[in-house]
């Protein structure tokens, strides 16, 4: 999955940190967006880091919690079933 974008990059001159000439290639270039991310995640809004990214964070968290709660309840149920004697005729 990561091989294709890598192959694209291998074929082009990327802007180096050491200030080489900018390529005039018209191929797709990844830009350094770290400063934006840093500003976004350092905003003092009181949101904990696991939810700070936005709506997707909340959805993923809820999905994970739902699976865990449901699964734990199911385990307890199966334990109860497995620990009851089966009726033998």
């Amino acid at each position: 999955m990561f091989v294709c974008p890598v192959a694209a990059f291998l074929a082009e001159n990327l802007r180096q940190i050491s200030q080489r000439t900018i390529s005039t290639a018209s191929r797709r270039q990844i830009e350094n967006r770290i400063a934006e991310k840093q500003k976004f995640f350092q905003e003092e809004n009181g949101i904990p880091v696991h939810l700070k990214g936005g709506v997707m964070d909340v959805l993923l968290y809820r999905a994970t919690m739902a699976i865990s709660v449901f699964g734990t309840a199911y385990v307890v149920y199966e334990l109860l079933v497995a620990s009851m004697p089966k009726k033998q005729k």
Partner: protein
Amino acid sequence: MAHQAHSYHMVDPSPWPILGATAALLTTSGLIMWFHFNTSYLLALGLLSMLLVMLQWWRDIVRESTFQGHHTPTVQKDLRYGMILFITSEAFFFLGFFWAFLHSSLAPTPELGGQWPPSGINPLNPLEVPLLNTAILLASGVTVTWAHHSITESNRKQAIQALALTILLGFYFTALQATEYYEAPFSIADGVYGSTFFVATGFHGLHVIIGSSFLSVCLLRLIKFHFTSNHHFGFEAAAWYWHFVDVIWLFLYMTIYWWGS
């Protein structure tokens, strides 16, 4: 606004530790349901929740370090200790399987024909695909070191090339091992030879897949400018893990594949 007067990282409250524990509960219970009652729904739930927890927990660590700057040198030092301790624990894990192999192979019982490999077992030729696999992993150790040097020297293009090559070599190893497993004339059910062979090499293969995944995440982060020339611990941790996987293979090759044939 209060700021800390120490160099440690006091993390935000997080649900991942406890959800990771429930994922482990679901996975282990799921294994029991699968073994004893032949249903795999719980196991699937367990593995899914494990994957979700890992993705979100590690995503948060990237946010805390690269985006929020919490990984001071103190924190980094402690993370190094942690990774070394973890890899040491993995070494002990494999030690157990090597012990099991040596226990059975050093003094083969009469039931095995008093010999190792046991009667009726045709072992794989160590000079064929296993030798190629050895070369592949050794080469990947070189390429990952090349990638590290490229990162410290701020050579972005070479770092990406070298890390990509490392990952490709890892995939190549996995693909070759998969064909070996498919073509092998013996199975895991073939007595203690089959058990020790497939459990030891199987867990190693799983660790190759884990290591390749870790390196792939590092490649993505490398492309997205997360690493600097003097702060790239995520990559170093992945490289340590990869070298560990390589060393385990060398022991596997020398004992099980070569001596054991």
